């Protein structure tokens, strides 16, 4: 193998994150973003939400829920910025670093939060 880029790896995360977000985000946004705040349904009480979040399986679920979609967004935004703003090739690398860097930071924050939640 000659000089391969990291892009196949990012693309794979983009795909995995696209799948996770397509499957889960509509129902989550609908419930937490609209149905609970607008009172269409009664929001789960704090205690039950806390118990749910503290459960190890839920923590794993939430980690996947945040980590993969962040990389999905990072990859798609990277190429959309290239294409919409007609970015010069010399700026491609810095933009990629910002996109994946932000997703990595978010992933670390998610891991930390989910591991330390009491």
């Amino acid at each position: 193998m000659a000089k391969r880029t990291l892009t196949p790896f990012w693309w794979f995360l983009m795909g995995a994150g696209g799948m996770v977000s397509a499957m889960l985000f509509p129902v989550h946004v609908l419930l937490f973003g609209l149905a609970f705040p607008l009172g269409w349904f009664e929001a789960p009480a704090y205690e039950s939400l806390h118990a749910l979040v503290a459960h190890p399986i839920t923590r794993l679920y939430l980690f996947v829920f945040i980590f993969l979609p962040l990389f999905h967004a990072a990859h798609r935004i990277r190429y959309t910025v290239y294409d919409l703003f007609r970015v010069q090739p010399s700026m491609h690398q810095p933009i990629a670093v910002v996109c994946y860097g932000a997703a990595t930071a978010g992933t670390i924050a998610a891991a930390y939060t989910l591991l330390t939640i009491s």
Partner: protein
Amino acid sequence: MAETLRLEVSRYRPEEDSEPTLQSYDVLLDALNHVKNEIDGSLTFRWSCRMGVCGSCGMMANGEPKLTCAVPLTDYDPAQPIRIEPLQFFPVVRDLVIDMSSFLEKLSNVKPWIIRDDVEATEAVEFKQTPAELDAYKQFSMCINCMLCYSACPVIGLEPEFSGPAAIALAQRYNLDSRDKGKEERMDVLDAHEGLWGCTYFGECTKVCPKNVDPAGAIQLYKMASATDYLKSLLLPWGSK
């Protein structure tokens, strides 16, 4: 014959023009050749087979890339002029003739021939292939290099490094050929810069392809294969050479 229709043709005469202008012709059916033969012999365009196999007559008709020999004029409303322009995202040589050197470069870069190191190119050898093995790549071998897919894909206009639909489909055609051993070499070319990854799946290439090659599908499979290889080498470092 009373039935006429109006053709608006993009003209670019390098001697006098700095950019193309539109010129209208009112013609009887059999449009462009009629113009050339009867009205204006200076109009320049490419064609050869008139039966959709040589791939040289691609142009933009009302903004859509078309093989002009394969589209009947009856597809168009005779009350409206038909706008004919050279394939977009290519430099123009004259009128409707585009410069295809970037395309030829991209095609040859992916090494579209059977690669093996066990025989000399000049040796007369025979490699057998079953019908099922032929079927594996046959669809991707139907490409006639008409460049309609390049004209449909905005990434071609945006990202000069992008190898483009036909070249990637052709690479896939050889990768899937049971006689070929050149997959790695082609990947080295495509993975560099934005050769493959510039594609964000607009999917227009597949829609305009007159031969149902499905280049967009070829690109997706190529990306998947590349990602799988990558993950394998990550997870099983001893498994890859």
